[in-house]
């Protein structure tokens, strides 16, 4: 029960707030509904394709390939590739979280993770055109020229400030085995916690996890 409340806390809070405004200020209520409708539409368009691509990549692209292309040894080419991945992808930053997380778990470096997230947020080809239309071409170009090096610099800085082990999702704080915690269910268990128990009981091996499969020991397993 407590878990359910925790899981849905924002939705519950939203429903309560909307109910209050519905009775007190209908004008604000309807304006808010309008904004929320826009957000939801955007989300429904963006999330399915992004997540299908992410999931299929998780299944098909081996960890070595991602490590080679985006790992800590990938150098400038890896950074430019990250910049490209971020700027051609559609959608707001929350769509980037699961996608970038998958790449990170498969071996992308911290700096490339940051570069993907930041460029996903700020650099968008069609948005540049909109920016040009509403502000000016000069404004758009100067902002772009300044943003790209800022993002690269941030990536390098984050690489120094954050260790790989600092990055862990909410569920695996006390995990002995580092699992992706996406709870994808591909291993046959409902969530990563159950899968971990099975691994500890030797019912399953880490090779049964699609995210850890063929990952080398440094990225995947710390038993």
């Amino acid at each position, binding site marked *: 029960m407590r878990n359910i409340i925790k899981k849905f806390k924002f*939705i519950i809070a939203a429903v309560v707030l909307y109910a209050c405004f519905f009775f007190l200020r209908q004008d604000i209520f309807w304006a808010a*509904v309008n904004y929320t409708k826009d957000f939801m539409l955007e989300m429904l368009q963006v999330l399915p394709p992004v997540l*299908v691509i992410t999931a299929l990549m998780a299944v*098909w692209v081996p960890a070595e390939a991602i490590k080679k292309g985006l790992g800590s040894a990938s150098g400038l080419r890896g950074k430019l590739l990250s910049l490209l991945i971020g700027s051609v992808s559609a*959608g707001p930053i929350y769509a980037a979280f*699961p996608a970038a997380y998958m790449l990170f778990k498969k071996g992308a470096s911290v700096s490339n993770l940051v570069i993907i997230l930041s460029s996903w947020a*700020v650099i968008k080809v069609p948005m540049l055109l909109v920016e040009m239309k*509403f502000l000016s071409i000069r404004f758009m170009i100067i902002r772009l020229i300044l943003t790209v090096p800022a993002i690269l610099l941030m990536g390098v800085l984050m690489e120094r*400030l954050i260790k790989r082990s600092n990055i862990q999702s909410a569920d695996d704080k006390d995990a002995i085995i580092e699992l992706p915690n996406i709870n994808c269910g591909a291993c046959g268990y409902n969530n990563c916690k159950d899968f971990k128990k099975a691994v500890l009981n030797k019912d399953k091996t880490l090779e049964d996890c699609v995210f850890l499969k063929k990952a080398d020991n440094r990225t995947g397993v710390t038993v």
Partner: protein
Amino acid sequence: MTIILMIILAAGFLLFSIIKSKKKTVEGLRIARKMLISTFIEVAGVMAIVGLVLAVLPPEVIKQALGGANTALSTFFGALIGTVTIMPAVIAFPLSKSLYVSGAHLVAIAAFLTTLTMVGVATFPIEVKHFGTKFTVIRNSLSFGAALLIALVMGIFL
């Protein structure tokens, strides 16, 4: 436009996957469904609350904050407002233009636009869920600083 390209790319990848292996495709789609449900639950409530904040906070308030006599202060406010709100770009750019027309500083608008997408109080809990508190705090702080820096340097050129 990119959304259509993404859908085409996803469909193409899916087709390729089905031809190559049905089993792996089913596995992949199951992962996608799980991620979709959990992301939707995480994001939907947050978005609804942001929608309410935008409805309570009228554009006039933003205009006042971004058009003050002190450019440095307006820029800081711009970055701050961008941090606490999220807007679809289709709303953000027309708003920026009307802000400019009604007297906001371009530098402040630049700061606002950059933090709007790169720094997020609203998306903070979602980011923490994926990457942990330390990563999220440092990334958002650095992005905030970067946005201010970009805006101030833009002030030299504009």
